[in-house]
């Protein structure tokens, strides 16, 4: 079931939470609403569910207008950030709730309900906890039960509000994979809200980046990471190294730093954005660029060694970060305080007088 969102405006008193949102969420895909807190992503999700009413705009499920349809009749599955399990009911009663409140005519018989609950609990691999109460469960278990409860009504749309937000890193990763495989198996349309860019990029087919109640960009994870439309998206999607300077005759300069740009760059004030993996470290300056640094910190944990760099003889708002392999690190053994140079391979140039960024490639 696809979701079409058209011209949504939402106000909380005088504060406008959403500005003219237009978006299509394709059938059977996993879509992430990504943004910092206050960007309106949760409000949009709640509007899709029917938990909030927009002042303007329409919501359609596969072409059918559901804007004026009550939450209880929209038949979507909703998973809350803090699980919202019914605290006085056992796990099995929680999962059976949706079935038990069906009108008598539509309600399956007791044995049928029991069987459906058992199947659902097996699906989330928690059948052994059927008679426990929510307080006796861990966060990860609670979230699985919340998912089983939402799935009990066999919804074609599943909405998840920061589903992994309250969990610790390890459980989060595990649940993420599990949700992905569940989605691939059952093919419902899912929308989930997150402020974690890694989660959004790893899990979804399509990412909607939001900020201050507006949609910034809608794209697949690969496109989004490779070609961000704006500085905001670039900065929000992970670590970024920025050089601000003036372009004169194909060279961008600021203080002691300069980079020779590929052909075709107009004279302008500009900012060059570089991802940590798009930069190499060398001991000497090259003819491509002169970006002197002092090593500020070295972080060995992880697949790469992350090196924090402080500009030497020029300025930037935040320290640069460059990743080098452990092999390279062991060969050269850079120390705190060492002087070194960065050489860009790929960069993204935002000019003051250009609407769109240009991707530069020196390789």
């Amino acid at each position: 079931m696809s979701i079409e969102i058209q011209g949504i405006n939402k106000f909380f008193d005088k504060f406008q939470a959403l500005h003219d949102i237009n978006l299509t969420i394709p059938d059977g895909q996993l879509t992430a609403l990504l943004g910092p807190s206050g960007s309106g992503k949760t409000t949009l999700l709640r509007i899709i569910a029917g938990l909030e009413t927009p002042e303007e705009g329409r919501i359609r499920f596969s072409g059918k207008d559901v804007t004026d349809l009550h939450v209880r009749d929209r038949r979507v599955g909703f998973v809350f950030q803090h699980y919202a399990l019914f605290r006085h009911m056992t796990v099995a009663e929680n999962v059976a709730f949706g079935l038990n409140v069906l009108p008598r005519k539509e309600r399956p018989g007791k044995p049928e309900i029991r069987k459906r609950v058992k199947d659902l609990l097996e699906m989330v691999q928690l059948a052994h906890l059927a008679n426990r109460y929510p307080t006796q469960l861990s966060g990860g278990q609670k979230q699985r039960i919340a998912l089983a409860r939402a799935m009990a009504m066999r919804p074609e749309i599943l909405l998840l509000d920061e589903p992994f937000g309250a969990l610790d890193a390890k459980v989060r990763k595990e649940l993420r994979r599990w949700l992905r495989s569940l989605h691939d198996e059952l093919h419902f349309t899912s929308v989930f809200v997150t402020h974690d860019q890694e989660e959004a990029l790893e899990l979804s087919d399509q990412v909607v980046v939001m900020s201050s109640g507006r949609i910034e960009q809608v794209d697949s994870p690969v496109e989004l990471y490779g070609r961000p439309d704006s500085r905001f998206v670039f900065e929000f999607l992970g670590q970024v190294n920025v050089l601000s300077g003036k372009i004169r005759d194909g060279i961008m300069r600021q203080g002691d730093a300069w980079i020779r740009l590929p052909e075709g760059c107009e004279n302008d004030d500009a900012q060059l954005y570089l991802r940590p993996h798009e930069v190499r470290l060398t001991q000497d300056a090259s003819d491509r660029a002169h970006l002197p640094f002092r090593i500020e910190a070295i972080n060995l944990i992880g697949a790469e060694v992350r090196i924090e760099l402080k500009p030497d003889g020029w300025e930037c708002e935040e320290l640069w970060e460059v990743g080098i392999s452990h092999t390279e690190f062991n060969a050269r053994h850079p120390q705190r305080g060492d002087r070194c140079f960065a050489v860009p391979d790929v960069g993204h140039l935002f000019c003051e007088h250009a609407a769109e960024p240009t991707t530069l490639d020196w390789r």
Partner: protein
Amino acid sequence: MAARKHRRVGDSPVVRRSLVGLAVALTLLFLFMPLALIFVQAFAEGWAGYVSNILNEYTLHAIGLTLFVALLTVPLNMVFGVFLAWLVTRFRFPGRKLLTTLIDIPFAVSPVVAGLLFLLLYGSNGWVGQWLGEYDIQLMFSWPGIVMVTVFVTCPFVARELIPLMQQQGREEEEAGVVLGASGWQLFRRVTLPNIRWALLYGVILTNARAVGEFGAVSVVSGSIRGQTNTLPLQVELLYQDYNTVGAFAASSLLAGIALITLVVKAIVEWRQSRN
């Protein structure tokens, strides 16, 4: 060194012991002894005397009236309290904060003043009372007046127990319920009510205790007509003024008994609440 225990700040044995001693002494002197004395006095003429005092025509009538008033007041305030708490915690509207404050008026106002207000408004010379009088409806100096002031005095108990709890529990469970297709009534009966049941029961117990024991407001509007508008607390006073000390204490022992039962039930409910 090993024998020396770690002490925390403020944990001085001298202070602790003297505070505990003081608390025990005060409890004995001001709580336990008076309570025990009620029963000692009530049984001063032996078991037979006690029974005959209780079975006194007017005392029996006062017991009946008191239970009748409580029976009307408690359900009324239970429904009122749930509605009010629901309104205040689940909706946003102008004047919500003011309303939350106004709930406490019956606690802030002296019950005698409350009684006088009702008398002025609904008495035969009052604004509403005159109008009602034309239809031969008399509220004051009869049981409806007693119920009215009792409802007024006890109306905050349930709401005040529920509001903080419902605020803390939030509306997420109710939202989860409605997304799963529950109707308004199903939501209340299956989600909201079970979540607040112990606090509600606690509020009901307090309402009942106060409704049974209320003296000030009731004494103003009842007129203390023996065998007609005398509740148990008023009957105690009347008996005492008649120099029937044993009778007064026998009637008091009933009120004290209700208080003790209330305490036990309250303790059980609190224990259940803390377990949930």
